């Protein structure tokens, strides 16, 4: 007999209340694709599991009046992929979420879980950062918002206050000529954790890049927003020199480690390669002539 409790509240207030009452021993269950693995490995032993999938706001996708999106933190990759509009507006964000795990994992895993897992290699995080997504969190002291890049704190750690729950991602409306893309390097074609991941969002106006954001995963203790790479792209026609400079900025931003998935040298090199490829895809999607 275990002393673990399971709760599936229907409202956020209930969820936050239970989360707070558990005083640090609770874990949020969205898709469970990380939590169950961690529980089985004995890495976490929650006293309370709060299943948030019965809370409507956490599982809904809303297209806002201005053309942006609010995506519930527990929306699974498979559900997001079936949304008629989301993938057209944010193809890079969608492909990043759809790269998390297998078809089976897609049926469960969410961008919220991916972010809150705190892994520097989470696929959706660089794309969300590139997309300039804002997260909404709710805790005992109410709601607040912050940019995605403010969430990761280090491997396995995030900057949410005690008993705060990630509620949703807000993605801004897209000006004409905008698109995004995400690529990752893995040794196989599927089923691996990213060795390097790169998300790029950009806007082209008459062939000139007028806005760009670059997120880079698995090359530092947290996913990085690489402003120097974005700067190298903005104002350019995405010519070779500009893209090379952005790639160099990505490689320069890397502070990776040697581990079972890749080496420092490899990750640093590949970060630049992926930047170039990702910019190419995003630019084509944005209607580059």
């Amino acid at each position, binding site marked *: *007999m*275990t*002393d*673990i*409790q*399971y709760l*599936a509240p229907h409202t956020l207030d209930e969820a936050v209340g239970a989360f707070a009452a558990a005083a640090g021993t609770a874990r949020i*269950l969205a*898709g*469970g*694709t990380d939590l*169950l*693995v961690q*529980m*089985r*490995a004995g890495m976490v032993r929650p006293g309370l*599991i709060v*299943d948030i*999938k019965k809370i409507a706001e956490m599982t809904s996708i809303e297209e806002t009046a201005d053309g942006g999106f609010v995506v519930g933190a527990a929306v*699974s990759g*498979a559900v997001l992929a079936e949304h008629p509009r989301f993938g057209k507006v944010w193809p890079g964000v969608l492909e990043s979420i759809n790269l998390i*795990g*297998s*078809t*089976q*994992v897609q*049926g*469960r895993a969410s961008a919220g879980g991916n972010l809150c897992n705190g892994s520097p290699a989470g696929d959706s995080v660089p794309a969300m950062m590139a997309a300039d997504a804002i997260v909404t969190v709710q805790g005992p002291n109410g709601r607040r918002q912050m940019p995605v890049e403010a969430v990761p704190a280090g491997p396995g750690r995030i900057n949410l206050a005690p008993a705060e729950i990630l509620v949703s991602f807000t993605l801004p409306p897209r000006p004409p000529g905008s698109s995004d893309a995400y690529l990752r390097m893995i040794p196989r*074609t*599927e*089923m691996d954790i990213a060795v390097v991941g790169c998300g790029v969002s950009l806007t082209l106006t008459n062939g000139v890049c007028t806005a760009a954001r670059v997120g880079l995963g698995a090359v530092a203790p947290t996913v990085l927003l690489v402003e120097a790479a974005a700067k190298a792209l903005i104002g350019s026609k995405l010519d070779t020199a500009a893209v090379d400079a952005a790639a160099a900025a990505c490689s320069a931003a890397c502070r990776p480690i040697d581990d079972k998935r890749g080496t420092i040298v490899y990750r640093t090199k590949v970060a630049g390669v992926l930047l170039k490829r990702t910019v190419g895809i995003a630019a084509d999607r944005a209607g580059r002539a």
Partner: protein
Amino acid sequence: MAKLHVSTTINGEPTEFLCEANDSMLDVLRGPLGLTGSKEGCGSGDCGACSIMLDDRLVCSCLMLAAEAEDSDITTIEGMAVGEKLHPLQQKFLELAALQCGICTPGVLVASKALLERNLNPTETEVRYWLAGNLCRCTGYDKIVRAVLDTAAEMREAAQ
């Protein structure tokens, strides 16, 4: 603490069971429910041998808490054939020798059925990526992919 009581539907049958909060759906299927067709190859969502349908979504039952099954509709490999009648995929796997040891087969079949329900005309590449979460160490996947493509073609023809 008392066990959790869960009411759900499994392979069309209203089903009730008791579980611990940290039991996986796979634990309950294989244990108290005696549905051992779903296999545990890894317990971490990497092999797909425990694949089931949860409310028409393909999932790994090892990555789902049994408690989450409340009010849901679950289908396992045991629910794939109707009485004596095998699903066309099951029949085709036999005809094309798309299994060797057979341990991955239940998961592969459940996943393949989920694919054909969404897309009855998949390309080889689509089949391969859809099934990337179902490890098979015996076949090299060749005959599995052929069996899925052949079944799809036959089902398309039958639907016309």
